[in-house]
């Protein structure tokens, strides 16, 4: 039954991705067409998800925001995994003080309060990055860097643990005896076998990154206000809950569905990649 859920989730997630990627090509309404005569309408044929207080079409805004949310999630995950694998491999392959120092660094980052520092970094560096890269790309870089920068630690620990157990196996020893250099041992022998738990951690990271970006937008400290990420749409809707509940339910539901499907897929992957666990 588990695996059926995971497959169903894969299907739903793919549907969301396709919708978000190709939807704007089909649904031609602009995201910032202000039209006060149609404001705060519920779902209808002309506006499948209704309109907000400026009369902008919510469906178009959701499609646009979906691209950003998914892109942020994916890029943050890639960054977290890259840094995590780098540090984990370094710590795993060396002994002595390099390992201890890197682990102390990892523990330090683990005890940093994530959300406060996230808020701080984004608020402080948002303007300077905007000046250098332009408003959207600058904030995108900042958010990806900051969110990814707080998620590498579990990956590093996983990789390090895997390295410790794989390092002494016979096939690695054989490679060493044949004269393989240490980087080659890592790249060709140890790392490919260590990646199982990392993949699972990666899927969970995408979900966590999407939630983190939505939380930042919801607190008003994410992307600039005119960019309709799902969290931002939720933020805009919270003062109109009593008269326009649809405005909040659609983005919230979208975030929930995306994160849920990713979590189910991650669970299925964990079952697939680690057959020992009777979960």
């Amino acid at each position, binding site marked *: *039954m588990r695996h059926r*859920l995971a497959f169903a989730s894969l299907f739903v997630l793919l549907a969301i991705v396709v919708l978000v990627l190709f939807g704007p090509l089909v649904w031609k309404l602009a995201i910032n067409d202000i039209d006060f005569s149609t404001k705060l309408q519920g779902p209808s044929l002309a506006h499948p998800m209704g309109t907000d207080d400026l009369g902008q079409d919510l469906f178009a805004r959701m499609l646009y925001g979906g691209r950003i949310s998914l892109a942020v999630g994916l890029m943050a995950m890639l960054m977290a995994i890259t840094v995590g694998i780098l540090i984990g491999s370094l710590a795993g392959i060396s002994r002595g003080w390099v390992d201890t120092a890197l682990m*102390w660094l990892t*523990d*330090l980052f*683990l*005890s*940093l*309060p*994530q*959300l*406060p*520092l996230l*808020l*701080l*970094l984004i*608020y*402080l*560096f948002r*303007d*300077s990055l905007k000046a250098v890269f332009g408003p959207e790309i600058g904030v995108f870089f900042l958010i990806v860097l900051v969110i990814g920068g707080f998620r590498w630690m579990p990956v590093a620990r996983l990789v390090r643990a895997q390295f410790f157990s794989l390092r002494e196996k016979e096939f690695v020893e054989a490679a060493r005896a044949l004269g393989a250099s240490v980087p080659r041992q890592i790249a060709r022998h140890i790392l490919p076998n260590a990646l199982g738990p990392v993949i699972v951690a990666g899927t969970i990271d995408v*979900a966590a990154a999407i*939630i983190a970006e*939505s*939380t930042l937008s*919801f*607190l*008003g*400290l994410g992307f600039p206000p005119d960019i309709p990420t799902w969290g931002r749409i*939720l933020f805009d809707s*919270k003062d109109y*809950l*009593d008269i326009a*509940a649809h405005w*909040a339910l659609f983005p*919230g539901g979208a*975030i*929930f569905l995306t*994160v*849920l499907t990713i*979590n*189910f897929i991650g*669970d299925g992957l964990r079952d697939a990649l680690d057959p020992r*666990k*009777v*979960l």
Partner: protein
Amino acid sequence: MGPFILRRLLISLPSVMGISVVLFTVLALAPGDPFAEMALNPNIPAEVREAMRVRLGLDDPIWQRYLRWLWAMVHGDWGFSFISRVNVDLLILQRVPVTLVVIGASQLLAMCIALPVGIYAAVRPYSWFDRLASTVAFIGFSLPTFFTGMLLILLFSIKLDWLPFVYKADISETGWAWWREHLRQSIMPVAVLGLFQGASWMRYVRSAVLDVIRLDYVTTARSKGLAERMVITKHVVRNALIPVVTLVALQVPAIFGGAIVTEQIFRIPGIGSLLIDAILRNDTPVIMAVTFVFSCLVIAFNLIADLVYGWLDPRISYQ
């Protein structure tokens, strides 16, 4: 146990120092000037602003500012808020109890949900209860806390009008009415946080109990004729709780993050909303102090988790 605590505290000290250095560097490197508002005020001449900057030591080299700040922190002088014109420690002390009460109550709720449900689900794996509980748990921790909060507000405050959704720190009633009012306004934030945490903890408890329940000593206990309930409570749970405690302790930073969001939605006057207000108004002493307090709380909870871990697992001595 005394020397153990002392040793753990000493080991945490470099972490605390490291965190303070990171925080201070981030804030010092950042653009943004608390006097930017004053710059727009024509009544304050430039020389007065400069004099204020020198007086507050904002132009000294960074290592000097850091050492001065550290010295002041250690002495209990947490500085003076730029914006509120109140001592920072007073500001924080006013707000910490509220946050701790909300977080504490939600963790208690989470434990009360996660433990029984997780244990029962693990004792009957793959039964309908287990599948239902696991699916509900997945739904629970996939719903972001701000969305759950808004849904609860929509349902209980707007549609049904049962519960207030703005938290009032000064309730005018006394006696039982005070408790009832307090309960009514705390239920939703505590429920939002508690259900979210409970969902993920239920999965941890279930997997930990599943790992333990197949071990030999459990079979021995059963074959000795112990009632099933005794086997579970006296043998399985105690051993299963060990990895759960570790995982819960690792999640404490995330719990504080969730508290920040909840405080924003329900307008609870805790340190989370203090932090966000301070960030938006560029109030550096408050930001430093609150983030520092968060970090110390995280480290304190890690220490408590270590102690609980040592108490639960007799194999770990305090040496």
